[in-house]
């Protein structure tokens, strides 16, 4: 039995996840609305074994097709891949594809902001902080609302350094697992709080904001972000 539908109802990433989790042998084909271009992805034993978009085959084809947003698709069971061009776990392919997608959005500032950017922007409007950012543990800035004079990349690098040193220090001084780092300066504060397993919230405050209020808002915001990031 074939499953048919529109890519506006279910995304390519979701279709890949669905087919990989079922573990069945299947072929996903799709036609892009904008130009009629076609793609095919073959699944076997819970992995993507082959993908083709135009002349592009293998991993690059998967990264390309993750960008597709509108079109029709069909999934047919029991169709064997003509060849094997992919040996990477499907989850790694999706992660890398989404990372590239984010990178494209960073490079093209005219593009719509990501859902995370929008959510962060809404949060920032209500919070007493001068700026907030979400960073991954390795210092990549996932989203940021910062005062104009501050550079995103610099903030990410500094915060990641502080995170890693704090985590090591808290262990060496036998204080358990790192939860939060707060640095107070004569002209403001920096608060770094874990937001889920993989990210951290960085908040910048001026001297007017009380430490109690800053902690309260940082904790609430980190919890919301952890929810958004699904960790």
């Amino acid at each position: 039995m074939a499953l048919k539908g529109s890519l506006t109802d279910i995304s390519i990433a979701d279709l890949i996840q669905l087919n990989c989790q079922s573990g069945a042998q299947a072929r996903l084909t799709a036609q892009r609305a904008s130009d009629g271009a076609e793609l095919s992805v073959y699944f076997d034993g819970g992995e993507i074994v082959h993908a083709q978009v135009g002349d592009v085959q293998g991993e690059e084809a998967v990264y390309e097709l993750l960008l597709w947003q509108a079109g029709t698709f069909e999934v047919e069971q029991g169709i064997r891949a003509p060849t094997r061009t992919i040996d990477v776990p499907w989850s790694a392919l999706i992660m890398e594809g989404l990372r590239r997608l984010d990178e494209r959005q960073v490079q093209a500032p005219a593009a719509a902001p990501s859902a995370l950017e929008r959510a962060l922007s809404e949060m920032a409007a209500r919070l007493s902080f001068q700026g907030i950012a979400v960073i991954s543990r390795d210092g990549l800035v996932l989203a940021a609302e910062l005062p104009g004079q501050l550079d995103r990349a610099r903030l990410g690098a500094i915060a990641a350094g502080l995170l890693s040193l704090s985590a090591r220090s808290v262990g060496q001084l036998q204080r358990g697992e790192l939860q939060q780092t707060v640095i107070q300066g004569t002209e403001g504060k920096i608060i770094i709080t874990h937001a889920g397993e993989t990210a951290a919230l960085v908040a910048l405050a001026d001297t007017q904001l009380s430490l109690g209020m800053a902690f309260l808002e940082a904790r609430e915001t980190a919890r919301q972000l952890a929810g958004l990031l699904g960790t």
Partner: protein
Amino acid sequence: MAAPQKRSEQLAETLRTLVSGSTDIQGVAVISMDGLVIAAELPSKLDQARVGAVAAGILSLSGRSVGQLQRGELQQTLIQGSDGNVIITHAGKNAAFVALTGKDVNLGMAFLETREGAQKVSEILG
């Protein structure tokens, strides 16, 4: 008249009094900017030299970070862990004051005691 107390004794006594009189602070150390311990009153399971080295590292990175993110001059760093806190602040020009607390403490009180401790240490060191 008793001989004037040595500076090292004064310092040790100040730290001892602070820790024994506090319900929140479990241990304190005074360290030089290059990570050497000047005086300490720490729980026995903690190695003094390690505390000095770790705290100096935090102090140095915090100082740089606060400048680069345009927050003025470093006043205090707090690191919160699931089992307790580390508070580091300057004690005069050439030393830092480190305080360790357990978990679920009155942070406001711990800050106050840390500031007072750092102030006393700064006066003793001159």
